[in-house]
């Protein structure tokens, strides 16, 4: 077994272990920290497989932005964890369904890779400039649609925030 293979399996065990701990912790901050560790592990795996750009984006976006926001909200709200009934039956069903979809996709990918196709990795291993050019030449429409959706979400949040503030100041004026 080469050094790379040993590293691969070590990182894989690390990711699986931290994800397993993340979903079983009752304490929300601990769960968030372990999830961040698991994302960091995925980034290391990307780097090992020769995709530094994806590795950095994973750290910047998932660990550095999304998980920090999660942590921020948890710290602000400080939920005292209830012992049972975190998820309703419907949410559990949805989670199970999504899990099955993911497992199916993974099995299909592994089978395609075994048959000689290497499509998933080939797309990931690219220089930043090449990747950017490919993205903006081939998929510009999807990018525009996605950014438009994000813009609408942003405007929605702004509108909600403004509305609440105006109502509060209105009350103050009345009293």
């Amino acid at each position, binding site marked *: 077994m080469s050094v790379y293979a040993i590293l691969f399996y070590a990182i894989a065990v690390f990711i699986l272990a931290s994800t397993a701990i993340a979903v079983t912790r009752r304490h929300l901050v601990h769960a968030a*920290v372990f999830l961040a560790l698991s994302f960091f592990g995925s980034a290391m795996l990307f780097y090992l497989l020769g995709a530094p750009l994806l590795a950095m984006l994973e750290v910047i976006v998932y660990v550095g*932005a999304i998980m*920090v926001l999660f*942590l921020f909200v948890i710290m*602000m709200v400080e939920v005292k964890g209830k012992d049972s009934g975190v998820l309703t039956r419907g949410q559990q069903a949805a989670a199970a369904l999504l899990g099955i979809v993911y497992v199916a996709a993974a099995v299909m990918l592994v089978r395609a890779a075994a048959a000689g196709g290497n499509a998933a990795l080939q797309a990931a291993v690219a220089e*930043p400039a090449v990747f950017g050019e490919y993205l903006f030449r081939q998929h510009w429409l999807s990018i525009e649609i996605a950014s438009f959706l994000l813009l609408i979400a942003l405007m929605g949040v702004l509108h909600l925030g403004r509305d609440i503030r105006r109502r509060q100041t209105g009350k103050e004026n009345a009293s």
Partner: protein
Amino acid sequence: MLAWITGLIVLLVKLVVVLVALLLTAAYLVWAERKLLARLQVRLGPNRAGKFGLLQPIADMIKLLTKEDLVPESADRVIFLLAPAVVSVTALLMFAVVPFGTDITLFGRRVPLIISDINVALLLVFAFSSLGVYGVALGGWASNSKFALIGGIRGAAQMISYELPLGLSLVPVVMLARSFSLVDIVNAQNSYPFILVQPLAFAIFVISAMAESKRIPFDLPEAENELGAGFHTEYSGMRFGLFFLGEYVHMQVLGALVAVFFLGGWRGPWLPGPLWLFVKIIAVALVMIWIRGTLPRLRYDQLMAICWKVLVPAALINIILTGFVMLI
């Protein structure tokens, strides 16, 4: 195999040299800051330990190392113990991609004066800078004290917000250099430093960098007169020292980044590369200390308003302008 082992030895030597230089400079930056700040406030500053107080950093280090390492009873023990390390480690790791000279030849081997030249170096800097938020946020939360928690939350909000203008201000630099690699960015400034063509980006970057390192006028996470010491209120001994070390290493890294992105990195006449980089780092650090001695602390709403209403739009306009000029 032999080449592999010599490569490893060269790498280890470089790591040791850079680490020792960073830590020593951090210790003496503290001395310089206390001395300069004292002069700005018409005081004398440290002058008891050694000539001009030059042994003060060493005395401080001994004091911090021998102090009792307190952990509050109701603190979240593991996270409380680990958080300071996150701050200083991420700050130190960022220096791995900063080039400090041309390749030199040692015993017939070409040795590049950089620890790791990867093609996404700029993104790596941002990745580690965003990981640093965890140290502040978790350190503040794990202390289980109201002051520390408020400091941690403020720190997280401030650092996430200012990462945006910090990143956006560098887009024109990447456009000009056509690369994420810091080596290529320095090489692209062969004829002129980018500060001449990107003064706006330079201003935005320096302001956001000061906010990112939580210094006055952006030191709300540790505002002494309202929060005790903010996110590190409950820390003592060397764990507090690690937060402190992280802050001063961060200052040097930001100085190095300002030098690499806008001042031509290690390039300059007469002096050798590493010395030029050192001079530029110290110059940026001294300006930061000067600003600390001059400006009062911002209010929280002013902090957010400057970020979202001034810096981000200015950075976006700067990107569009640069694009136009490059196309013409």
